[in-house]
């Protein structure tokens, strides 16, 4: 494939796939090769996350390569839906996806025998291969010695590159070898699976209509009975059904088992290779990982350490992010004030300051929390602890209708339910996987934090009980807990009533403990941050602009006129009423002697520093004490100041009324007022209703909408007035509660409970649809969560309103 870049140079582009067993350090190598040139997309037609990146070996960038990270698998025989996609992408049997031009197969130097069995299968794909033997530095510890030259020879001349991925040793050599792949011919050291299997293979090749399949594809069809691979094949070649069934039963007859026939041949060949290539120098030392497991998986200390880890993670999300969040907040306020200063008032200024800067700023403020959360998830996963956590909670989770394998998806869902839902692909049991998907959005994702943070800060009193229990902290923890408790109940019901699950499996490897590298962790965090920023810059920005437009238009000229004339009147009246005092003062001043004049100047000076009526009263009494003979001028100056102040306040009030009138007259208000009755029982006015309805496509929008509505609604002179203060001052503008504060703790809790349970995330609905390939599960999840959210918010509000507040 070739295409033109901006400079007009022709770029040749090849696709290389990188594959390997789980925990072989494949992703570390992938990161080392591609760095930040990564993008996360999907395989065509399915939402299996496809991570790919680019690299080049010459500085001119003339030859650019796309490197596709294939998820780790133990063999090409797929055990779960995600393995099936991964394997299909590698083999090249995935519909509409280009098959790779070459393959980097990563072998774990400390686990070579198992790696060989996988490599032997990969060779059958018939693509040029380069082998990367990773973690060669750990081989010594295990008391082994690897003969790399011999390895290359035994594998029919495949290039072999020793690598230490986390220290970036051997990466340049690997890159060069990978870049050379498209020029190489595939090497076949073909494995023989016995006469029965080979005969079947030949028959299938000869009698099929499609001559483009490689040997690996046929082997999957032969050995994986009732698999998606076999299903796809029979769909294309229905006439070969009988031939296949007959051949399969023949293999079974002779070898006792179909799938184990392949595995046995591969294991034997791998063992032979291992003996040829690896010399055992001395018996291995005790495994460090096993020693660490003695503590971390201890029946008593294990769960305690896990709980402490979780507490530390969530504590840090809140405490570490605070200074950064304040910094972002103040920079956006500064930016808005700068824009306001240079632009003349009008729709464009309003769009920029209230709409875009206000809206996007209120979302970006959560970047620090997201970064910290993903930082912890990356560290816990890279270190090997995540799998241990799943091990510890498996039994507990099974009681709730889930599995230990649900732990990682659910934990990731605390950051964002989309990676969480994608992570359920490791759950082989379909029903269990669906249950996990359907409860994952109940975990408190980072997009809910903005609303919680602002509501709690504004309306939950800062009280402390028993010295350590902070009421705000209790409310926040309860909201997290609410999601978890509801998830347990829902999954229990789903398991008992709808899915009636059979036994699942929990068969997996506990990876060796590793110290996560800064490079690998930072790349994972940066990529997540990038996709969050992209979201803030696209979907959220778009909705923000729509909300701004709905709340700005129609900017009725009548309102402008009406308020302009009222302001004019006020200014005129001020002039009229202060006239008499100023002329009296002027007369006195002209006829007064010099020393009196300077005394009057002093008094004038003193008044000019006052800001409010209290100041002026105080200054008046001070001046009267100092200059009791100048009672008249003091009184005149005081009156002028007092009336100017009163007019100023009246003008501000007018401006607020004007802004309020615009907002009440806006399209947004008209929609909101129509819908208000449905949400009034929850304690919400039309502004809250609109903010929450606008947040259905993406939760983060709620806070942006509130920001926009309240910025537009209060054009006070005090620009520093924070959103929290504006919300605290909000009052009902009509109805039976007119004049009362809109937000009470009961309203705040009702909003937060609604957010805790509602599925306000279009991306999640779409992801569920794609992952379950059924709108039924997507809308089912959406409906049950929304109904639950409404009922719970109604209950909370009515209860609190009646009995507490």
């Amino acid at each position, binding site marked *: 494939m070739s295409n033109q870049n901006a400079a007009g140079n022709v770029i040749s582009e090849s696709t290389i796939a990188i594959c390997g067993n789980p925990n072989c350090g494949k992703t570390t190598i992938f990161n080392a090769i591609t760095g930040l040139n990564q993008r996360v997309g999907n395989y065509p037609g399915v939402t299996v996350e496809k991570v790919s990146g680019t690299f080049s070996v010459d500085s001119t960038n003339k030859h650019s390569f796309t490197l596709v990270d294939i998820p780790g698998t133990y063999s090409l025989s797929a055990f779960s839906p995600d393995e099936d996609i991964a394997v299909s992408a590698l083999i090249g049997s995935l519909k509409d996806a280009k098959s790779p031009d070459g393959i980097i197969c990563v072998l774990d130097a400390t686990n070579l025998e198992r790696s060989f069995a996988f490599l032997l299968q990969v060779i059958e794909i018939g693509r040029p291969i380069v082998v990367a033997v990773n973690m060669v530095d750990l081989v010594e510890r295990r008391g082994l010695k690897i003969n790399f030259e011999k390895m290359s020879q035994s594998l029919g001349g495949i290039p072999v590159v020793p690598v230490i991925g986390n220290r970036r040793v051997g990466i340049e050599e690997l890159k060069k070898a990978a870049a050379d792949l498209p020029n190489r011919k595939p090497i076949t050291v073909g494995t023989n699976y016995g006469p029965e299997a080979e005969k079947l293979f030949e028959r299938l090749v000869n009698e099929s209509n499609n001559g483009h399949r490689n040997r690996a594809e046929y082997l999957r069809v032969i050995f994986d009975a009732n698999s998606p691979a076999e299903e796809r094949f029979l769909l294309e070649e229905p006439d070969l059904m009988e031939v296949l069934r007959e051949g399969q039963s023949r293999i079974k007859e002779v070898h006792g088992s179909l*799938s*184990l026939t392949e595995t046995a041949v591969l294991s034997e060949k791998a063992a032979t290779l291992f003996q040829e290539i690896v010399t055992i120098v001395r018996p291995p030392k005790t495994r460090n990982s096993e020693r660490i497991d003695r503590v971390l998986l201890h029946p008593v200390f294990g769960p305690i350490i896990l709980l402490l880890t979780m507490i530390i993670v969530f504590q840090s999300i809140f405490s570490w992010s605070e200074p950064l969040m304040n910094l972002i907040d103040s920079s956006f306020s500064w930016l808005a004030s700068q824009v306001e200063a240079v632009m003349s008032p009008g729709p464009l200024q309003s769009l920029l300051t209230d709409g875009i800067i206000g809206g996007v700023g209120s979302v970006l403020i959560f970047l620090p929390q997201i970064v910290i959360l993903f930082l912890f998830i990356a560290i816990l996963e890279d270190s090997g602890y995540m*799998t241990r956590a799943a091990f510890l909670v498996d039994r507990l989770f099974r009681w709730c209708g889930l599995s230990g394998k649900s732990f990682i998806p659910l934990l990731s869902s605390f950051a964002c339910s989309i990676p969480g839902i994608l992570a359920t692909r490791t759950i082989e049991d379909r029903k269990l996987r669906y249950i996990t998907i359907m409860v994952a959005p109940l975990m408190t994702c980072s997009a809910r934090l903005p609303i919680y943070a602002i509501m709690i800060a504004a309306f939950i009193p800062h009280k402390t009980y028993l010295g350590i229990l902070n009421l705000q902290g209790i409310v926040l923890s309860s909201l997290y807990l609410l999601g978890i408790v509801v998830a347990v109940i829902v999954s229990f019901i789903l398991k008992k009533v709808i899915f009636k699950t059979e036994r699942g499996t929990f068969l997996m490897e506990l990876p060796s403990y590793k110290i996560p590298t800064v490079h690998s962790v930072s790349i994972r965090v940066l990529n997540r941050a990038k996709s969050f920023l992209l979201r803030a810059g696209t979907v959220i920005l778009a909705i923000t602009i729509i909300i701004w437009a709905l709340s700005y238009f129609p900017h009725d000229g009548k309102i402008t006129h009406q308020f302009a004339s009222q302001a004019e009147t006020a200014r005129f009246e001020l002039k009229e009423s202060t006239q008499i005092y100023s002329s009296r003062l002027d007369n006195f001043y002209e006829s007064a002697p010099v020393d009196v004049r300077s005394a009057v100047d002093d008094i004038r000076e003193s008044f000019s520093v006052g800001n409010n009526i209290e100041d002026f009263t105080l200054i008046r009494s001070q001046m009267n004490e100092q200059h009791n003979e100048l009672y008249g001028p003091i009184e005149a100056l005081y009156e002028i100041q007092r009336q100017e102040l009163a007019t100023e306040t009246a003008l501000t009030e007018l401006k607020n009324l004007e802004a309020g009138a615009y907002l009440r007259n806006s399209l947004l208000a008209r929609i909101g007022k129509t819908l208000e009755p449905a949400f009034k029982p929850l304690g919400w006015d039309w502004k809250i209703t609109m903010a929450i309805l606008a947040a259905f496509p993406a939760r983060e929008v709620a806070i942006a909408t509130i920001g926009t509505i309240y910025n537009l609604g209060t054009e006070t002179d005090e620009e520093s007035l924070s959103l929290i203060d504006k919300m605290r001052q909000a009052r009902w503008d009509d109805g039976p509660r007119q004049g009362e504060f809109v937000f009470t703790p009961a309203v705040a809790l009702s909003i937060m409970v609604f957010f805790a349970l509602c599925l306000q995330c279009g991306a999640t609905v779409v992801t569920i649809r794609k992952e379950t390939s059924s709108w039924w599960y997507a809308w089912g999840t959406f409906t049950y969560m929304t109904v639950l959210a409404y009922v719970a918010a109604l209950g909370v509000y009515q209860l609190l309103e009646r009995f507490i507040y």
Partner: protein
Amino acid sequence: MTYLNMMVPGQSGRVVGFSDDSKMVRRLYELGIQPGRSIIYLRNAPFRDPLEVQVGYNLITLRKSEASLIAIEVDE
């Protein structure tokens, strides 16, 4: 001969065979639990399930129900 789920933590033995032919057994095989290999029962998770075993150099976790498929000759 016994089955892996009947052993106690700390015991070791040799894999004899499997009492089922399914995808599961294939995966056990791929993870290194193969006839003739020695296996060490390391520990149970809280509530005594799942369990952790060592095969060769690898640490594997599996549930009691899966362990019941693996026939073992326990070392004396």
